[in-house]
């Protein structure tokens, strides 16, 4: 197994509050690694630091051997980060195809190309087709994103993330608000993707986490209190205490 993302001794304080307390964990190739924890455990602060939207006080973030601790979000994206947002955030006036194309353009730094036509199909058309097939939206590629259902928007989000040709994908509560059959569909999509790109999953739905995550890390009060497979975590006493208040 190859370590794609490594977090080493990450620390972040807000005044007297310690939001990240010497966090260590890693994401390896081919896995879905879920990060769980009660509200206020410091998940969003951690993600912001990973994405470079917030500067850590100390510690390091390593992406496939490159120290990215001090890089901007933009640079991290170019190095291989992709994320989907907690709030669905696609460009609603664009079609599905255009949304994915925009990501491709961003990734391949083609945004200073003033002369090629985006309608002509000469631009990475096949790659986008592959992605749209993977997320099961190829037949609806000309539909404006504003007309999509909630679940389809989520799928599109994943597609946009994939278009960035990332080394890893960070999914922030991708199942929020989805119906049961949509959740099943998403699980299938995730399992397909993970062999190409490892997924760091932030999710509240424990059934989902336990059924698809290869490894789970539990964040409580800014500290990773446990890390392991589903069954290891299920039987971990500290985790039970953090979630249920009882051991």
């Amino acid at each position: 197994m190859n370590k794609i993302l490594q977090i080493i001794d990450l620390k972040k304080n807000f005044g007297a509050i310690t939001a990240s307390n010497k966090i260590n964990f890693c994401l390896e190739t081919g896995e879905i690694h879920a990060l769980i924890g009660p509200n206020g455990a410091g998940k969003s602060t951690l993600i912001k630091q990973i994405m470079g939207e917030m500067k850590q006080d100390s510690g390091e973030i390593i992406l496939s051997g490159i120290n990215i601790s001090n890089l901007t979000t933009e640079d991290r994206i170019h190095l291989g980060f992709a994320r989907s947002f907690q709030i669905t955030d696609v460009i609603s006036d664009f079609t599905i195809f255009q949304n994915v194309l925009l990501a491709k353009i961003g990734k391949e730094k083609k945004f200073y190309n003033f002369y090629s036509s985006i309608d002509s199909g000469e631009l990475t058309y096949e790659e986008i087709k592959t992605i749209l097939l993977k997320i099961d939206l190829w037949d609806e590629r000309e539909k404006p994103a504003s007309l999509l259902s909630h679940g389809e928007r989520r799928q599109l989000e994943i597609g946009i993330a994939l278009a960035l040709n990332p080394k890893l994908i960070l999914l922030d509560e991708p199942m929020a608000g989805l119906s049961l059959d949509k959740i099943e569909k998403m699980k299938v999509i995730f399992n397909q993707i993970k062999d190409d790109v490892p997924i760091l999953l932030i999710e509240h739905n424990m059934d989902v986490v336990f059924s698809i995550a290869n490894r789970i890390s539990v964040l409580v009060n800014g500290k990773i209190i446990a890390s392991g497979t589903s069954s290891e975590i299920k039987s971990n006493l500290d985790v039970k205490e953090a979630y249920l208040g009882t051991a």
Partner: protein
Amino acid sequence: MISEKNISYISLISLLLIAIFAEYFNEPYLITLLSRIIIFSIAAIGLNLVLGFGNLISFGHAAFFGLGGYISGILAIHAFNSELLISWPFLFSGSNNSLIIWSFTILFCSLLALLLGALCLRTSGVYFIMITLAFAQMLYYFAISWPSYGGEDGFSIYVRSTLFGINTMQGLNFFLICFFWLLIILFTINRVVKSPFGLALRATRFNLTRVKSVGINPFKIQLIAFVLSGAITGIAGSLYVDLNRFVSPSLLSWQMSGEFIVFILIGGLGRIYGPLIGAAFFVTFEQFFGSYTEHWQIFLGIIIISTVLFAKGGIIGFILEYRKNE
């Protein structure tokens, strides 16, 4: 079936045909009007790139129109009087060669747009509107209080600039030069809007976070669009001064900026040919109502208000909608 494309072809061909007829029936004033329509639409097409496609409401595009105009006027008047414009690093006393004048216009308007864009794009929304307006006003007051080039009164240039020995004083020839510019610019804009850059620009109008999250820096995209936009509007200013052979601070006035926005709105926001239709309507309206009453702007005001409140798609939107319902 009338599509947006057909509307644009029809309007371009009618412009050309009317001009040829006007020449045949010896109506030079009509040709001047047509040239004005084209020049105004070029100015608004420039603005439309940032306003219609990037949702950057610049209320200061008269700055580029005026700068283009003043550069052309100053180069021409120095050449006419054989008066030195600069003596260092080399001797230069202006020029009446269109190619040189246009190059200077594009260069300086791009530089101004780069400077203003870098400042104004730090803000957004209503701040952006007010700041672009304020900077254009700054140039306006500068032009008024700078006495070397006529101050408040402006100055006249006596002949139009020359291009490949064509007699530009002849109305139809000058019209054709403007028409040619219009075609070049429409072609360019068409390409740019449909290019990857154009897609990124259109994305910035909806969702900056999303644009950033796919690794695109929206500020750079907007700034480049602003520079291109300023250069195009500058060319229009240069042609306008050549058409009237007169330069005045009114080129830089805020009403000018407002009218450019109105052309875009009347034609149809975010449509490549919208400004052309809008400018044609505006100039025709001005001529028609202006011949009945000098207070035609009252009716213009009412029409703009009604368009905004009740007919958001402008003329092109109206035609397309009407056809769809038939």
